[in-house]
């Protein structure tokens, strides 16, 4: 009997097709094949990117030259532009504004390594620290309301042809809809229970165990109850905080270890699948923003990793339902049993 499950945060229903459950090796994984020439993200090719915004440079301090460990550059094809005003306006019954924002690329390693799973935890911690610094810096620009940190790995996850590990940062002038939905869900839960839904969710998962993937130091990794995709994994900090950028140095080290293990397990269990990860964090709170009154108590930053094993089709687009062909309990079991 298939099950419908409701996400307690957004109110999104998913169908868990218990009888169609697939094993990891039953998902078709397409490799589009290599098409790389001169990688603009490798050490020594710094002139092929726009000038760097930030870099971790232990010895040579000269920008846009070799000697870096992590490097952040503006996107060469930005989807939002940094210069200009928002200029909100109407057009008949439609609303329009300029596409202002920041779009940056975090080059995670000077070597030509494709998957973050293959970086050392120390290297990953430098990447996470750069994300934190960029978020703090972008918060100072009052045009921006939200910063999204995310990664597209592999063709089906939307990555380009260049196989060099990188994440992206996009600052947007409006709080995106998905983020608002999630915040709204957390706020409603808090109004009734006066507790953070993510803290409650973690307590329940730690107790029930069946969806746990990892529990180390300050973080847990779980396959969420209402997974939208097979092998979806969330990494949550045990310490309650709405804002990713409040992460302390020790937590960065812990997160790096957990993230590395989860990515490595996915890589091994699913034969190097394409995936996205998205950092979920609270929007910037300027003085005027009175709407999210309880956000400090009701929201909890976390990381969502979604392997791209199935295709989203008409049904998902039409309904907002997702059909997940594998139970999260099974996914968690596969991942727990994968030795890395």
């Amino acid at each position, binding site marked *: 009997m*298939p*099950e419908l499950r409701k996400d307690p945060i957004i*109110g999104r229903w998913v169908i868990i097709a218990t009888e169609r459950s697939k094993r990891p090796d039953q998902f078709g994984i397409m490799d589009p094949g290599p098409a790389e020439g001169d990688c603009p993200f490798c050490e020594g090719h710094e002139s092929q990117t726009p000038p760097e915004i930030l870099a971790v440079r232990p010895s040579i301090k000269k920008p846009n030259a070799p000697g870096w460990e992590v490097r952040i550059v503006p996107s060469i094809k930005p989807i939002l532009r940094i210069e200009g005003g928002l200029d909100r306006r109407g057009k008949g*019954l439609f609303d329009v504004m300029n596409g202002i924002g920041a779009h940056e690329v975090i080059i995670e390693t000077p070597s030509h390594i494709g998957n973050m799973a293959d970086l050392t935890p120390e290297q990953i911690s430098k990447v996470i620290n750069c994300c934190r610094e960029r978020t703090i810096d972008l918060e100072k620009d009052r045009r921006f309301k939200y910063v999204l940190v995310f990664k597209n790995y592999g*063709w089906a996850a939307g990555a380009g042809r260049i196989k060099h590990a990188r994440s992206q940062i996009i600052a947007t002038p409006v709080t*995106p809809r998905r983020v608002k939905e999630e915040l709204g869900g957390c706020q409603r839960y808090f109004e009734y229970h006066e507790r953070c839904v993510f803290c409650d969710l973690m307590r329940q998962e730690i107790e029930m165990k069946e969806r746990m993937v990892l529990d180390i130091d300050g973080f847990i990794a779980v396959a969420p109850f209402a997974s939208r995709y097979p092998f979806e994994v969330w990494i949550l900090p045990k310490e309650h905080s709405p804002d990713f950028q409040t992460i302390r140095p020790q937590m960065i080290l812990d997160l790096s270890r957990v993230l590395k293990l989860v990515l490595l397990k996915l890589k091994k269990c699913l034969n190097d699948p394409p995936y996205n990860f998205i950092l979920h964090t609270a929007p910037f709170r300027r003085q005027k923003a009175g709407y999210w009154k309880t956000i400090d108590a009701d929201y909890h930053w976390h990381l969502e990793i979604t392997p791209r094993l199935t295709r989203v089709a008409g049904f998902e687009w039409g*309904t907002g339902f997702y*059909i997940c062909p594998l139970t999260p309990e099974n996914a968690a079991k596969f991942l727990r049993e994968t030795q890395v």
Partner: protein
Amino acid sequence: MGELRKDPIVARWVIVDTDDPKVPGDFEKEEHSWKSDNCPFCYGNESLTPPEIEAIRDPRTKPNTPGWTIRVVPNKFPALQIEGDLNRRGVGIFDMSNGIGAHEVIIETPYHDKNLPDLLDSEVENVIRMYCRRAVDLTKDNRFKYILLFKNYGPSAGASLSHPHTQLIALPMVPKNVAEEIKGSMDYFDFRERCIFCDIMHQEIQDRERLVLESEHFLVFCPFVSRFSFETWIVPKRHNPYFCHVNNEEIIDLAKVLRQTLGRIKISLSDPAYNFIIHTSPLLGDSDREGGYHWHMEIMPKLVRTAGFEWGTGFYIVSTPPELAAKFLRETKF
């Protein structure tokens, strides 16, 4: 400079790339590697599907044998199951229920390689009539609150079989995307006492630049707030919330318009993968509020891959402005 545009219905923002717009040849071509041997939807293979629910067939032939022109069968791998009760329940902080619903496949033609644009107008009319008949039939089951008709064409649109078919799913609840769309239209209606879709049509007819074609009963245009490049809507001119209340004259016109639109998309973008979805008011709607919703079809070619940014924000990046897409589709001869 790119533009952010806000959908007036669900308040969704999209980014439209107006600096470096993509044209049809710029998209990556997907290989359709489809086989026709052992296709469960072809003549002679009727036993490979579950027994048919309904068919248009030569009266001298028996069910589940050749001789049909349109055939409706249960999906062999249903996302939802027809028997049983919902049985809503809680597990700790989580809510769940059984996956009750109907999942049917409407096989549009016995011909493996003939898609909607390749059929005769009269054949497409019968396909549309079958959509309506199935929707009306399932409306009678009071466990269902919403009926979704949709098509996945091509692997990257999620199709697993190439034989032309449409799917129907009856759901025990009004799904989130539909509820949001209806809420958005109702908010507009409550404030202005006009239907937002009727208003959008007026504006599109006035602006002209996003029109693809206009027939007696339908308007085809690339919406101002497209989520996908070459997204195209087919909207009936007559205000009517329910797809299955479409009248015979409209069906005859819709068949022509749908063939034309899909044919032009096929030629203009060299046979892209696409989804189409029929948007309609839920069953047993509130008759006081029928003024606010308007059924229509949305066609979404799958030309780019959805990535982390879209998933994370619900923003969509459209690389062909709808004005340009509409121009290409207006000028395409089919």
